[in-house]
């Protein structure tokens, strides 16, 4: 067999083997690999490279070596799933760099991190001032994660004390001018509904590049023709406005009324309306 044919055969068969091995070993990213996976990756790569180009080696040996380097990491990962101790051994533990706002110099030294390295990693996490950091840890994958002090954390809805309405994921119901039936039925809607909504917006489905419906059944679309502006959904803001207006009206009637009984009735109802607005307004905002 001429050498080039053998190289072709070896390359193709090892390519297929490699494809399945990498598939089986999972979809972790290069940056998320722990030490063990890192070594495995390099070794598997060089086994394949050697056996593909060096025709003096025996091809079976490549398969034996590959299977060792596949099954042992695979088995270890499986055991690591079950046992915390094995996990600590193979994947390593994180090293705390900053705790309670204090930098732990010993740990820095242990990981051979210089002050500049630490500052760089903090900057990567958008922290330019070490004093703003409450907690920082070097993950086993080599990434530094940072918890800023409470006053430097971005404000969340919880911090403001608002109670936001829960929202489910939207469904994409139109793509490239075609209605997608499965997402539509997921939102318990149908094509008739879609046609009606599109008619309301005065657009044809062929012109719709992307259409999504949220959990409240509101449809938003993007058109191929970017010159046309589509009205944004207005039902909820209009409802809120109508409720606020009626509340104001009721208050006005209460002021204008001279009969005490009627006045009380208007006042009571204006309070009720205010209560209703408070209750429903989280659901009417997006």
């Amino acid at each position, binding site marked *: 067999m001429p050498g080039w044919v053998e190289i072709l055969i070896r390359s193709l068969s090892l390519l297929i083997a490699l494809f399945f091995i990498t598939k089986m070993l999972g979809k972790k990213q290069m940056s998320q690999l722990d030490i063990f996976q890192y070594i495995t990756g390099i070794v598997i790569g060089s086994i394949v490279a050697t056996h593909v180009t060096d025709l003096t080696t025996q091809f079976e040996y490549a398969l034996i070596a590959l299977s060792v380097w596949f099954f042992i990491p695979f088995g270890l990962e499986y055991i690591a799933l079950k046992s915390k101790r094995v996990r600590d051994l193979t994947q390593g533990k994180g090293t705390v760099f900053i705790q309670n706002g204090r930098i732990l110099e010993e740990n820095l030294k242990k990981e051979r991190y210089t002050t500049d390295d630490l500052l760089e990693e903090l900057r990567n996490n958008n922290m330019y001032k070490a004093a703003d950091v409450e907690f920082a840890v070097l993950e086993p994958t080599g990434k530094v994660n940072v918890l800023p002090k409470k006053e430097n954390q971005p404000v969340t809805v919880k911090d403001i004390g608002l109670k936001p309405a*829960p929202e489910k994921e939207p469904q994409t119901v139109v793509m490239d001018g075609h209605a997608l039936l499965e997402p539509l039925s997921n939102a318990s809607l149908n094509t008739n509904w879609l046609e009606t909504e599109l008619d309301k917006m005065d657009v044809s489905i062929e012109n719709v590049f992307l259409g999504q419906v949220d959990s409240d059944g509101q449809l938003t679309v993007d058109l191929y023709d970017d010159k046309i502006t589509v009205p944004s959904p207005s*039902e909820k803001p209009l*409802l809120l406005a109508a409720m606020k207006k009626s509340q104001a*009206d009721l208050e006005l*009637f209460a002021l204008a009324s001279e009969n005490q009984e009627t006045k009380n009735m208007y006042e009571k109802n204006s309070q009720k*309306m205010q209560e*209703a607005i408070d209750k429903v307004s989280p659901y009417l905002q997006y």
Partner: protein
Amino acid sequence: MTVGSQVKGCFSSIKSVEATLLSLENKTQNPEARECFHEVQSIISDIKTDLEKQVIYLSQQEPQYKN
């Protein structure tokens, strides 16, 4: 505008609010939102009942503007 027609206008806009809430309740997939819309609907419906009485009373008081 007479008081009667003002109250009547408010009454009809409250009716429309109630109907919109009903349609939202039926459209939403979110059980919590559904429940909230339902609760608010019953509040609005109470207000509507009170206001309806007032509308009837006012139309008796201002028969000359009755339409």
